[in-house]
């Protein structure tokens, strides 16, 4: 137990227990009644000790767990200290009867959607949450699917989508933009904004044609919002009413799956709310039925623009649970492929964003390179997009002869394309005007929102999992972490150019000293045998058969592990019960917390700029909704 936790233990005595975990200590609050009171205090104390970032908030249902736990549910708070590069897990047990915990939304903005998701999936309520609605499942859904007693195939069709008007009115009210006099026509009779998702009224009016008439006082307040331009007096009569506008999910700029409802004053967004879950496809529940290696194809489909990074992230987590580290050659292969994937991810982000802004040419330049990289992936893994290349303890295949040279060639072409695009856009006045000073998020706020990766770095925080918690031998490579200065859309967009340059540097170093040797560890209980053995001798075949059918037996335990994916910290929190299948598989997607912030950061800006902001966040729906 380190000093910090000793202090915590000393202060809270028997209310908390500190247990050793697979990845450091775990602070446990076992008694729901006392822990309900103590939870906020313990969190406060941990925060004071430097664990100032809420990395993830995970629900677990122990109903079928082989070892009896103090209570049926637990909520695990993963807290990070970015300065000292430490993490701690705080686990609060919650009883099956009336599962309630106090909300931490007043401490971290990130908690808002994380708690909503936990409520949606497990039915654990968070007292004091301002708007505890369902997040991933639709508003007509009954029950909580990640509970162990919810049958996985119990499907619930939806008759009509949520209008979101109740949420938008709530938001307008929070900002003081709805006065009681005009509130009545906005919310239909019977529609009630409630704390708990299930009781929230679905039958709000359709938003297309109507908005509320704004009174002089409201206009006053709108004009005072930051970002709203000062206008001459005679324009004032133009603000007759707020218009509600629905954007997405079937909209070219929201990529088919993201939705926002905005209240507009002219072209300026005065309030906005977002909705996700349109691509929720049950990753966490489905993968509970798969063996550990069988989860890998599902991870491909999280961030499908850089699929192999997800593979490696998951494999790394499982390897850590097994207490093994893969071979040096595999580590180097993973680094090369991951960095190439990062480049592709950024290329797609930049290309797609520029298309949304009306600059199509760049897309062709960037996508040609992407196709060439896909040809390499195709040859190496047999698939272009969903590669399933990682394996626990190794990778599916070794590099083919000449693979390294192919990669270097593509890298050169990529650099040329990137330079061309940079020349096309970096002095383009229209583009710059649409990016600079828009939707600025300061470092403090970015941390509170749980942002990671390029978004956090754009706000000036030098946090990168590759440096903070090095893995796969990243400590051997010489590279820098680019950071932004302001944290506006411009920074979030252009930082990707710098990151690609660093990735190219890493790839060159890794290829130059690519170690020889096997790609799989020689551990029969964990890593697949070489293909030669599988096909040519009975032991190899048996070994392969057992690992595939029964799965790699991961010892019982819990672990959170993170990986620097293209969009930020991709984390997996896995609960193992000793069998070949995960008991609980939680994916911490960087995009979720990025999109949670989107509705708030576009307020006060023009509608058209919101599209650029969204592009700069690079939300990938597969990973957002899982």
């Amino acid at each position: 137990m380190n000093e910090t936790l000793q202090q915590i233990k000393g202060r809270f005595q028997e209310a908390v227990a500190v247990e050793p975990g697979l990845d450091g200590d775990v602070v446990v609050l076992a008694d729901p009644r006392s822990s309900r009171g103590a939870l906020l205090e313990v969190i406060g104390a941990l925060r004071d000790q430097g664990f100032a970032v809420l990395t993830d908030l995970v629900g677990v249902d122990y109903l079928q767990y082989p070892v009896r736990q103090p209570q049926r549910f637990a909520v695990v708070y993963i807290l990070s200290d970015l300065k000292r590069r430490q993490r701690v897990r705080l686990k609060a047990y919650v009883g099956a009867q009336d599962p309630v915990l106090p909300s931490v939304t007043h401490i971290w903005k990130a908690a808002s959607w994380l708690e909503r998701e936990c409520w949606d999936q497990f039915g654990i309520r968070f007292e004091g949450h301002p708007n505890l609605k369902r997040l991933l499942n639709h508003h007509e859904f009954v029950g909580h699917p990640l509970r162990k007693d919810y049958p996985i195939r119990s499907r619930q069709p939806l008759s009509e989508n949520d209008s979101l008007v109740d949420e938008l009115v709530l938001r307008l009210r929070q900002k003081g933009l709805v006065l009681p006099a005009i509130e009545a026509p906005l919310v239909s009779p019977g529609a009630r904004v409630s704390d708990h998702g299930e009781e929230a009224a679905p039958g709000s009016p359709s938003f297309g044609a109507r908005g509320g008439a704004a009174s002089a006082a409201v206009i006053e307040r709108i004009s005072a919002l930051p970002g709203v331009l000062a206008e001459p007096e005679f324009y004032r009569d133009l603000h007759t009413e707020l218009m509600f506008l629905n954007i997405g999910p079937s909209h070219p700029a929201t990529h088919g799956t993201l939705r926002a409802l905005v209240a507009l004053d002219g072209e300026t967004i005065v309030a906005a709310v977002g909705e996700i879950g349109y691509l929720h496809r049950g990753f966490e529940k489905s993968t509970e039925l798969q063996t550990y290696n069988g989860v890998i194809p599902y991870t491909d489909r999280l961030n499908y623009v850089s699929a192999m990074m997800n593979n490696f992230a998951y494999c790394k987590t499982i390897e850590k649970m097994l207490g093994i580290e893969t071979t040096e050659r595999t580590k180097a292969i993973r680094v090369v492929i991951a960095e190439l994937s990062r480049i592709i991810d950024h290329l797609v982000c930049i290309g797609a964003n520029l298309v949304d802004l009306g600059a199509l040419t760049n897309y062709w330049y960037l996508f040609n390179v992407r196709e060439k990289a896909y040809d390499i992936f195709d040859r190496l893994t047999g698939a272009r997009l969903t590669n399933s290349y990682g394996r626990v303890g190794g990778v599916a295949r070794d590099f083919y002869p000449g693979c390294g040279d192919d990669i270097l060639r593509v890298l050169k072409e990529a650099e040329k394309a990137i330079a061309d695009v940079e020349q096309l856009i970096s002095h383009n006045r229209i583009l710059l005007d649409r990016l600079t000073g828009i939707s600025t998020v300061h470092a403090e706020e970015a941390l509170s929102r749980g942002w990671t990766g390029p978004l956090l770095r754009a706000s000036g925080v030098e946090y990168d999992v590759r440096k903070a918690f090095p893995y796969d031998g990243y400590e051997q490579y010489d590279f820098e972490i680019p950071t932004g200065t302001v944290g506006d859309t411009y920074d979030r967009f252009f930082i990707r150019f710098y990151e690609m340059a660093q990735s190219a540097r890493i790839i060159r170093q890794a290829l130059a000293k690519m170690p020889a040797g096997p790609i799989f560890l020689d551990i029969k209980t964990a890593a697949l045998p070489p293909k030669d053995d599988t096909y040519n001798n009975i032991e190899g075949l048996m070994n392969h058969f057992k690992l595939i059918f029964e799965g790699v037996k991961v010892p019982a335990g819990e672990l959170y592990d993170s990986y620097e994916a293209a969009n930020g910290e991709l984390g997996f929190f896995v609960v193992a019960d000793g069998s070949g299948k995960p008991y609980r598989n939680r994916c911490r997607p960087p995009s979720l917390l990025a999109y949670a912030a989107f509705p708030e950061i576009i307020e006060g800006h023009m509608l058209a700029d919101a599209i650029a902001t969204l592009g700069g966040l690079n939300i990938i729906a597969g990973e957002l909704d899982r």
Partner: protein
Amino acid sequence: MGLETLFGNSIVTTKIDSVLNWARKNSIMPMPFGTACCAIEFMGLVSSQYDVSRFGAEIVRFSPRQSDLLMVMGTISYKQAPILRRIYDQMPEPKWVLSMGVCACSGGFYDNYCTVQGIDDIIPVDVYVAGCPPRPEGLIEAILKLQGERIGKETVLGRPEPVVSLPVASRDREGGAQETVRH
């Protein structure tokens, strides 16, 4: 009538239907309903290497009212289903539907509480493309198949009846069965 022989090669006579169908076939305007990974391969299809404009289908329209081919690319969840249905209804006749990838065709490996097990529960489908995701070549083949077998059967006077089907929810909920397990 042999009237055209009077004019030499300068005039061709044909049926209005043939001209319309010929034009329709070679100027497909797809509406990409891309929700997931499959849509990323669609981006590959429309960019330079695979270049779908070679087959007359590159004018992508994001408005259903301006398109005649609905390309459903990606997993459709129950939350998404009413939207897909609405987009389909907004498209003018004649219209065709291409279902890309196993998710859209059958739910794929997402056999769970939130995923529609095949979009043909919601809208009629003309061509299914297998794969997870299908390669762009697969999509090209599907477009050629549509052009060869589906598009171009219309006549000006006798439009085929628009397909009428029940909205998702009422169909799935019939009999009060919440659990629609398919095997």
